[in-house]
């Protein structure tokens, strides 16, 4: 069974899309070769490059023309891109939003004009705007990660947190998910919480300084893998790899390898490729007439630890192994 892809529409979720169908042409017009826009929040981060390129490749495999647009982490730029895409006559949008709230208006603008929007990875805070949202469950993933954290670190000790971009929804959800578990243990004391912008360089520098102020920490939780890699380097530089456990989020190749090598402790595997492919396939189906999509299709985030690391590769499960999403 496909993960999270319950393809029978529930009453609630289908409403938005149905209402739209009523306004627009019935699902009669079939497009075998459409134009698909891949609008991604930023390409300044390999994670999103993978996401965008996979979506594009899959759409092209399915016979469509696909173009990638970079919003450069800027809602305004994203709004302009939407306008341009609509004026440019694209048929569907595979969308990685920059902001859960601010991007809603953009999505509405497109669906109002009958152009379907499939959100990938990041959520928008509206259930009646997008055609469907294929989402990493950041919160749940971090709840799981938090539980493993307590298991691996123990119920006592000082730790630090490196957060991603200030103002980013994922930053917020990951931190919240993690703390929803860890804060219940009074023995676990967070002695530093700093932002390192999802960025490896900053992760390294901020960690070096945190180590200075708090040489006795036993763990660090990082909001993504780039920061985890930077943090690990700082810890290695300080000769404290035995003392401090590093936790990341994403499932980047380097981190998976690092876990296998017994360096980084754990990460939460998102499936960017899987999400992107699914979105491209949905768009394809939409163009061929399908209209009933679930509003939210959560793609579970999986914990990668030394115990199960062998099953994972770069941003996903190893071929043949655990990739439940392939239909």
């Amino acid at each position, binding site marked *: 069974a496909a993960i999270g892809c319950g393809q029978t529409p529930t009453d609630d979720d289908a409403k938005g899309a149905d209402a739209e169908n009523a306004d627009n042409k019935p699902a009669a017009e079939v497009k075998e070769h459409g134009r698909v826009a891949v609008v991604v929040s930023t390409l300044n981060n390999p994670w999103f490059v993978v996401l965008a390129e996979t979506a594009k490749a899959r759409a092209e495999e399915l016979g469509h023309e696909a173009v990638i647009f970079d919003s450069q982490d*800027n809602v305004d730029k994203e709004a302009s891109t939407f306008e341009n895409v609509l004026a440019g006559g694209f048929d569907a949008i595979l969308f990685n939003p920059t902001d859960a709230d*601010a991007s809603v208006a953009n999505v509405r603008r497109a669906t109002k004009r009958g152009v379907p929007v499939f959100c990938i990875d990041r959520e928008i805070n509206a259930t009646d705007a997008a055609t469907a949202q294929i989402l990493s469950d950041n919160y749940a993933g971090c709840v799981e990660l938090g539980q493993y954290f307590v298991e691996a670190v123990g119920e006592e000790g000082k730790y630090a947190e490196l957060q991603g971009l*200030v103002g980013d929804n994922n930053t917020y959800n990951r931190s919240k998910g993690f703390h929803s578990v860890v804060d219940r243990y009074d023995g676990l004391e967070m002695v530093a919480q700093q932002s390192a912008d999802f960025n490896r360089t900053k992760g390294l520098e901020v960690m070096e300084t945190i180590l200075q102020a708090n040489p006795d920490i036993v763990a660090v939780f990082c909001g993504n893998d780039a920061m985890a890699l930077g943090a690990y380097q700082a810890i290695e530089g300080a000769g404290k790899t035995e003392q401090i456990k590093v936790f990341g989020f994403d499932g980047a190749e380097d981190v998976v390898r690092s876990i296998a090598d017994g360096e980084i402790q754990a990460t939460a595997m998102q499936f960017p490729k899987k999400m992107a492919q699914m979105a491209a396939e949905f768009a394809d189906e939409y163009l061929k007439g399908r209209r009933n999509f679930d509003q939210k299709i959560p793609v579970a985030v999986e914990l990668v630890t030394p115990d199960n690391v062998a099953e994972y590769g770069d941003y996903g499960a190893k071929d043949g192994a655990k990739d439940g999403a392939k239909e």
Partner: protein
Amino acid sequence: MNLTQRIAQLQSLIALAVLMIALSVSTDSFLTPENGMNVLRQISVNLCLSIGMTLVIVSGGIDLSVGSVLAFSAAVSAWLLKYGVDLAPLGVHVEFTVAGTIVAGVLVGSLLGLVNGLLVARLGMPAFIVTLGMLSIARGLTELWTGGHPITGLGDDFGWLGTGDLHGVPVPAMIVAGLVAVFTVVTLRTRFGRHLYAVGGAERAARLSGVNVARVKTWAYICSGALSGMAGLLLTARLDSATPRLGETYELDSIAAVVIGGASLSGGRGSVLGAVLGCLIIGVLNNGLALLDVSPFWQKVIKGVVILLAVAIDRLSRRQTA
């Protein structure tokens, strides 16, 4: 406006025309009324900032803080609109109308501009550093104010400012067109405007002629702040949301537009109409690259090259006439 300025603008105009012709030929979708309106809507925010930037640059300064000031004004005004103010001791709760919100946003921007202006004009600190400091401070304040979360759901009345249209012309474009008209008159036909050029072109001479140099400069920064506030309102209305990262790096686009439009970063030269041309060139370019399906990586390269070309042509031609 003198001859060299006219010529500089002619160059920009030609660059713009070439760009537009090329795009009309190579895409079907460029030369449509809808796309035209898109471009106008898209440049409104940058143009609003660029008017203020023009004043500051003409006065011999620079304002790197416009993007952050935009964000802070946007955050404060969105908050006021959404939640109003509790005047606790009086037991009064004040709601903000759309008009009140606009006033508040512009005021907040002006206030930050005033701080910039006082530091530059009274203390004689370098504008680059003052506004770089403000860039950091205003961004931090925005994040503090919003707690890092966007403020959304501001209502359709307010949204109309950013998304509405009048007879097919986007409202933000009309608002900014009005500002362009006002500031064209201000720069070319008022004492303040002329003093701006005098201060930027020859500060000492202006001072010895009895121009209150510090006051003129301070007002340039106040205007820039106010227009950043206005730009913040337009952007927030367009996005129905004030996010903490709104307007990041906008200073660069705005400075580029003003310089492409013929302004000199050493002061004394530049015009509001030039800024309009500069914004159009950048806006059409962004729009065109998207319509042409150019890869995002190449877009950066091409954008850089076009900025260089636009200014290079301008300088080369000016060199022969100078």
